[in-house]
Structure formats: structure tokens, C-alpha cells
């Protein structure tokens, strides 16, 4: 099956959709700037659509190694709780603190 031809021009709605997927809050100015710049980059990338890649496998890594396993699981000291929490924006001294993900009825 041939690859679908992607639409190279991004609409403001599409930029907002991507920004939400990427967890980025963008200003209106950024949205309009990125819409133009990303469209230009995608148009440039469209040269790849002309290359014949039938029967060419994709390269995800240049190494021959696949599914590398640890030789054996050797216990080693890890970070202390204090070290692990040292860079956290908010902690209660024992855990990372974040906003509730689920509505618990409070």
C-alpha cells in the first residue's frame, strides 16, 4: 500500500492538537510562528516522498545488538531517598508530590 501523502500545511487547530499531545502550553504568537515554520520544514521533508524505499528495512539503531539482557542481576546500592528527592520541586519529605490525577470526590 502506498504511503498516504501528508498534508504539509499545518492549521492553527492542528498546531494546538500537537501541542496538547506534546504537553506544551504555547502562546498565540508561538502557535502562528510554529505553524509556518513546521509547514516549511515538512515541505522540505517532502523530498523523502520521492525516494523509492520498497523492500528497504527501517533502521532504528545502527548496532547489530538486539534485546540486550543483563548478564546477571547484581544488587548494588542505589540512590538514598534523600538523594532521590533532592531535586524535586515539591515533596512531603518521603515522596514526590503532584496534583491529584483522579477526582477522589473532595
Amino acid at each position, binding site marked *: 500500500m502506498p*504511503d*498516504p*501523502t*501528508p498534508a504539509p500545511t*499545518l492549521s492553527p487547530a492542528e*498546531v494546538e492538537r*500537537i*501541542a*496538547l*499531545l*506534546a*504537553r*506544551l*502550553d*504555547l*502562546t498565540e504568537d*508561538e502557535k502562528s510562528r*510554529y505553524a509556518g*515554520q*513546521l509547514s*516549511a*520544514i*515538512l515541505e*522540505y*521533508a517532502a*523530498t*523523502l*516522498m520521492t*525516494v523509492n*524505499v520498497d523492500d*528497504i*528495512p*527501517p*533502521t*532504528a*539503531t*545502527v*548496532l547489530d*545488538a538486539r534485546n*540486550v539482557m*543483563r*548478564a546477571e542481576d547484581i544488587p548494588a546500592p542505589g*540512590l538514598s531517598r534523600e*538523594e*532521590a528527592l*533532592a*531535586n*524535586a*520541586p*515539591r515533596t512531603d519529605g518521603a515522596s*514526590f508530590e*503532584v*496534583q*491529584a*490525577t483522579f477526582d477522589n470526590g473532595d
Partner: protein
Amino acid sequence: MNLCALTIHEARASLGAGHVTATALTRACLTRIHALNPRLNAFLTVNADEALQQAAAADERLRREGAAAFNDQPLLGVPLGIKDVLSTRGLRTTAGSRILEHYTPAWDATCVARLRAAGAVLLGKTNTDEFAMGSSTENSAFGVTRNPWDEARVPGGSSGGSAAAVAADLCCAALGSDTGGSVRQPAALCGITGLKNSYGRVSRYGLIAYASSLDSVGVLAKDARDAAIMLEVIAGHDPHDSTSAARPVEGWEQALNGDIRGLRIGVPREYFIPGMQPEVTEAVRAGIETLRSLGASVIDISLPSTTLALPVYYLIATAEASANLARFDSVRYGLRVPGADLVDTYRKTRGAGFGAEVKRRIMLGTYALSAGYYDAYYVRAQKVRTLIKQEFERAFAQVDLIVAPTSPTTAFKIGEKADDPIQMYLSDIFTLTMNLAGICGVSIPCGFDTAGLPIGMQLMGAAFDEKTVLRAADAFQRNTEWHLRKPAL
């Protein structure tokens, strides 16, 4: 004697003979950083206290054992810079980003740990484009680094801080990282030697990830011999990085015998293109003639997929970046800007914490991986990557080394390309291919343009053939003096 101008091998000779102490050498570097860094902005964090402690420890061992101490600590007392995308235990590591402005790692990157074990003095952390995304260091959240040859110009990037620091003699050598040219291009623009290792040669553990299938740790140095010395320390398998290759650490310095007779050099016509600076073409052609005069044979080759490398790179690298940078969620480390709910907190934090180029690349990568476009963009780019890799493999069946310009121009002016991403991306057009193919190479100085700016020549070798690359670079440097020129500061 200007201590700061010493190469690693010169510093070792002086330290081993007792002509200079590590403390004096380190103090000289710190003094020079203090004097020049306000102008150059090469270092983001200076590690003065710890560096002096490391120097004192080195001096103690050198006093006891002399040069024999280098047998198991080959960098004993040698002051180095570390690109600020490499984790350093107890020393702030920002990746050039607001989002990590106050981040202090609890562990060392493996390459940093190996430098410490080798006795090196860690002077501090060098400036970088944010998350190593850029070709000029203009994308650093902490200000641009200035090129020591002309402070109105960029040093290249993303390892621009390390390149400027080495070129300005603020340190003996520095670590960098190279995902699409980020060691070689700044080395070229700053007139120094930049080694990009084969993918997997050096552990990526503790390197803040940009594009995991392309990232490599590299070396910025004053000559090829120093690059070889550094590589021997940082190379080798690491159980913490399953993509680090189980290849032996070779005696790269020992292999520098100055002899390249019979070496077959390929010159790819696709790397000499209309629109590039004529002086770059001339200097690289002259450099190739020098290699021929040393006994190498030169043949014209073709790598026709070269023109496809840029779009392939910007789809693959941004796709991987969009996944890698998802970890910056304001939970375990980094900036947090509270929002109405958790998703809003993520969005506000990342919107405020990332700079324009990082957001642009995350957006592009997210798009390339999103439903409906994954096959058309990402998988297609991976297939074209296969073609590029195969082309290099065929070429290296024919030649031992491929020689080309590192960058199509010398250093450009600060601000010149800042508003046009594609123009900026084009400055890496000759370096991206190597990361896609996973091969190794070095950029070495081969001349200067009429404005007095350095020109870099790139020697590319087959995967894991650092030995040939370094031997050729060293042979060139034994017979030329381009690498010995210093900027007037």
C-alpha cells in the same frame, strides 16, 4: 610558558618531569577563565574548589611516583571542561535549559566517572545549545558563547562552549556530544580538533538524551593525539548502557605512527556543492593534496543520498527528542509552574521551561510520530536512513577514509541565522550523515579564510575504525601548522 596553552601530552610531560604542578596548571586555567569567560561565556558553571582539590590530590601522587603515575591515571592533573549535557555528581547540570537551571545530579555520567578515575581535574561545565539542539549555542538559555576568533560570531554548536574553551586555552581539552555534528562543526568553526566517536563506542549513560539512536559522546581537543588520549579513557563497554559496544579499548595513541602511505581516501562529490564558501572548498582541496603528498591515494566517490540526510535527520532526531524530553514533567526534578490540573501543570511548566528551538523540535517530532503520519514521515525516514548507511558501507569497502569539508562556511555572525531554522539546519549538512550511519570521524583545522576564521576538514572512518581516523589526522598535523594557530584574545 603559557600553561593554559598546553596540550594534554605536553601537560603530562611537564607534570611528570616536575616542571609544573597540577595546582599551578589548574590555577592558570581558573585565572584565564576568570579573565575571559565574561567575554566568551564558554563556561556556565566553574568548579573551582573541587578542581583545586583534584589538583592537590594529583600533585601528591605525582610527587610520590612521578610520571609512572600516568600508567593507571593517564589524565592525572590535567584540567578539562565538560559539556553541560553530561551529568556530574554534585555539580549543577543545566543542559543549557531553564527547566534544569537548578538541577544537581546525584551521579556521574560514565564518561565523567572515567575522567575522574583517570585523575583529571574538572574545571566546570561548558555552554551548549539547549538540550544540544542547535548549531551555534544561540539556543542556550544562558546566553550565546562567543567565538574566540571573532567575538561577533558564533562558535558553532551545540558543543560551542567546549569548543570555545579549548580554542581560547581555558582548558586542555573538553568533552562534548555529537548528535548531528555538535562536536565536529564547533571544532571546525573554532579551529580545533573534534572527535566524533562511532555510535556505541562511548557509554551514553548520564548524557542527557536528545536523540538516543544518534547521540554520541565526543572530544574537543588541541590535536589528534590528545583526542586519542581522551578516547582511551572514556571508551569501552558500560553495563549501564546496553547500546555501548562490547569492543576493546585500543591503544589509539600508540597507533599514531605518522604513516599513511597506501591509505585509500575517497572524496565524495556531494560534499562540494554550489553555494558553499569558496575558501572552504579551496582549503579542503589543499588539505586532501597534503594527505596525498604523505602517501595516500585519492579517488573520487559518490554518496548520492547525502542530500536526503537533512530531512531524515530532522524527522528521526525530533521524533526521538519528543519522546526523550517527555521526562521533564516537573515531578522528580526541574522547574514546576503550577496549573489548574496535572496536565495543565505539565503544559505550563514545559511551555515556560523550554526555549523556542526545543519546543519547535518537540512539536515536529510529535507530529512525525502522531497517528496518520508515523509511516509517512518517521518510518520512511528510517528507511532512507538505511540507504544512507548502506552507501557508507559500500564506500568503505572501497576506501579507508572519506574526506570532506566539516561545514559549508566558516563561523557566521551571531543572529545571522537565528530566525530561519532551515538555514541554521543547513550548517550541519555535511556532518549529519555520519550520525545516521553510526560511523566515526574527526574535524581538524586545514586553513583560514580571508577574514582570519578557521576552516575544518572532516575525516570519516568506518564504524569502530577510530584508529585510521586518528592516525590520518595526526599524520596531517605532523606536517601542517593550522592546528597550532591561536586566536588573539
